């Protein structure tokens, strides 16, 4: 099965080609089935290959070189895949959750305009994302990186006739470009310093490379800028909430479960670089913590169900970066997986609610839906409990692992931990606010629940599977004091801490120090306590007092409701000046300088031609004379030059 691995990448590509070229020739159901199969089969292959690979025993990656790609002098890049623990992990998440979301889309998108196009884009996205995570070099990863950006753009603007969707797509694309500059610079620096772009060669070159250390922080910073763009961290996060203009399955797949975690993956893949870059790592941790609390506070007052989940995603990504920053890559990757499950579940659940309410996204016009759409409500509740961090749901284990590791970080640990715990409090609060307002409480629906009914099996089946996942995936890695399972840590050992760099990192003091068991229990207990407090406050405000949501706030609440006015500030700082400069160039410089210059050349040539054309008299004799004179001068020239 390992030899069949290229099929994992090829099948989604075939699905994309099939659905885009035969777009008008195949019935809708068939297109959806093809699209789903093109992701499900790779999942099966990956799963079988996974058992053949025996990841718990094997340490060396399996490299598959498909064909030589760019060979120029020392610059050697192959179209090659590196199959190891990390790429398996990502591939299983992408194809596994991808399959469920494809299946969901078959029901959700039924009867929509551009149904086949939707599946073509989704398959293209899976293809690009798999290239991103499976690549054995930075160039192929960059291809996938740009590819997923393109698919994100196409799918956000899927309903391109709506200007909001089209603009949101452009916003995402442009903000991602800023990050991509970082990616290219980082790639260039790595090639300059290590002479290779292959991950395995970079990883083996860096520990013995003394010249690398002075540049480590810079290179790491470039890659973090790339990750900031793709994974929506402050200050480049603003595109993600707007990206909710895309269809809900897209939000679940691309803007929650997979693409936005590419930044986390990149850091994990280049962990050797980040290990020896303590300053950048601390910066990452700070940005992550700030993003976590920043987005969580915005989420507390939003009224669009998908926007709340979007800010929640930004906040959870902040948690992951916090973990990556403190050097606990396992915790970050663990949260990546649990988050993929419960956030995909929450988005799909939200999609089911929106579907049932005929495209209503405002939670002020929902309420009391629990009895009407039971499957959606229960699975949504499971996802909410998981994200809030209540044991034994998956979110508890991953979030607790992150907070524990953060606490152990030297000097700044407790401070970052405090920020993280406050963010966790807000997370529990805004998620339960959402649940109480939408599923319980008073019915504010426009039809008063008359036409509301549960969606079909293609929608509920993925919800149930994801809900099961959101409960159980946490048990891959549990704390010392509870079951003490460390399968993820030992699973990732070959990829994340190669012997030499560990010593190097220890020297630089980026690896957390240990804490006692009772201390760890205390930390975990406190985070559960804070989550329960958050839930209780939400319960008191929105169920007991059944406070009515409104949109005219005062004071700080107004700032929160308007998302700290970040979009407006960016508008003043960047968009307006850019527009002014563009208009200046377009309307003044272009019109008066460039245009006049070229029109002037044209007019000059025309008047010169007006004079010269008088030579065309029409008399044969005149032409003969011109020829004679010309010949005469040519002969004179030849004579003078001396043939």
């Amino acid at each position, binding site marked *: 099965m390992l030899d069949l691995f290229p099929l994992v990448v090829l099948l989604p590509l075939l699905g994309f080609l099939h659905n885009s070229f035969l777009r008008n020739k195949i019935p809708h159901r068939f297109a959806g089935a093809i699209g789903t199969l093109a992701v499900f089969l790779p999942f099966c292959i990956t799963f079988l290959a996974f058992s053949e690979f025996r990841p718990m025993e094997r340490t060396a990656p399996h490299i598959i070189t498909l064909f030589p790609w760019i060979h120029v002098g020392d610059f050697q890049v192959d179209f090659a895949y590196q199959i190891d623990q990390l790429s398996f992990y990502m591939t299983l998440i992408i194809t596994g959750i991808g399959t469920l979301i494809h299946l969901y889309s078959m029901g959700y998108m039924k009867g929509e305009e551009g149904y086949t196009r939707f599946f073509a884009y989704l398959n293209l996205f899976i293809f690009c994302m798999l290239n991103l995570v499976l690549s054995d070099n930075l160039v192929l990863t960059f291809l996938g990186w740009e590819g997923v950006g393109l698919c994100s753009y196409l799918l956000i603007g899927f309903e391109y006739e709506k200007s909001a969707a089209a603009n949101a797509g452009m916003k995402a694309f442009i903000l991602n470009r800023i990050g991509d500059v970082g990616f290219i610079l980082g790639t260039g620096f790595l090639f300059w310093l290590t002479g290779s772009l292959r991950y395995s060669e970079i990883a083996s070159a860096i520990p013995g490379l003394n010249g690398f250390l002075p540049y480590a922080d810079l290179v790491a910073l470039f890659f973090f800028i790339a990750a900031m763009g793709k994974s929506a961290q402050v200050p480049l996060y603003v595109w993600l909430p707007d990206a909710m203009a895309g269809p809900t399955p897209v939000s679940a797949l691309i803007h929650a479960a997979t693409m936005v975690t590419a930044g986390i993956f990149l850091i994990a893949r280049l962990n050797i670089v980040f290990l020896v870059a303590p300053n950048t790592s601390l910066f990452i941790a700070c940005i992550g913590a700030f993003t976590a609390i920043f987005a969580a506070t915005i989420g507390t007052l939003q009224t669009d169900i998908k926007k709340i989940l979007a800010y929640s995603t930004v906040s959870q990504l902040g948690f992951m970066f916090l973990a990556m920053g403190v050097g606990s890559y396992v915790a970050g990757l663990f949260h990546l997986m649990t988050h993929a499950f419960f956030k995909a579940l929450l988005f799909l659940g939200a999609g089911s609610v929106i579907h049932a309410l005929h495209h209503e996204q405002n939670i002020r016009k929902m309420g009391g839906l629990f009895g009407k759409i039971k499957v959606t409500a229960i699975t949504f509740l499971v996802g909410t409990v998981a994200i809030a961090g209540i044991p034994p749901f998956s979110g508890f284990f991953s979030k607790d692992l992150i907070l524990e590791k953060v606490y152990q970080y030297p000097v700044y640990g407790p401070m970052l931990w405090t920020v993280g715990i406050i963010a966790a409090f807000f997370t529990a609060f805004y998620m339960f606010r959402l649940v109480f307002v939408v599923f319980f409480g008073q019915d504010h629906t426009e039809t008063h629940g008359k036409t509301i009914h549960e969606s079909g099996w293609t929608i509920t089946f993925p919800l149930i599977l994801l809900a099961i996942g959101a409960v159980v995936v946490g048990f891959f890695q549990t704390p010392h004091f509870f079951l003490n399972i460390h399968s993820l840590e030992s699973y990732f050992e070959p990829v994340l801490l190669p012997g030499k760099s560990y010593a190097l990192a220890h020297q630089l003091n980026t690896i957390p120090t240990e804490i006692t068991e009772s201390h760890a229990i205390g930390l975990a207990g406190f985070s559960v306590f804070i989550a329960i407090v958050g839930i209780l406050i939400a319960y008191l405000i929105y169920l007991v007092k059944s406070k009515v949501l409104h949109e005219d706030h005062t004071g700080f609440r107004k700032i929160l409701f308007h998302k700290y006015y970040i979009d407006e500030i960016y508008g003043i700082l960047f968009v307006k000046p850019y527009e002014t400069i563009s208009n200046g160039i377009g309307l003044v410089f272009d019109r008066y300088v460039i245009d006049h210059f070229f029109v002037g050349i044209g007019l000059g040539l025309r008047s010169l031609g007006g004079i010269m054309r008088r030579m065309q008299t*029409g008399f044969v004799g005149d032409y*003969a004379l011109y020829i004679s004179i010309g010949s005469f001068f040519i002969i004179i020239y030849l004579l003078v030059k001396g043939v």
Partner: protein
Amino acid sequence: MNQAVSGIPIEFFLGLAGILFSIGVLGVLIRRNAVVIFMSVELILNSVNLVFVTFSKSLFSVSGEVIVFFVMAIAAAEAAVGLALVIAIFRQKKSANVDELQSLKW
């Protein structure tokens, strides 16, 4: 190089060729009748032929004479086409005066 051909110095031949060439060029430039212009062109071509055979003889090389045959063949073909044109024009304009043919101009 043999300075004389058949006992006559080579300069005489070249001088004659130059005179014929100049007459031909002047004829093309000055004369108005299309047929006369053609004759002048033939004169130019034949002056060149004369130069070719002269050097052919003095250098003991036949290649010059070979080229003369080519020139003659082309001149014949050109005369055939040219005279046909002149006749066609004459039928239209009732005249062979080239100054009357000046409609193709600015």
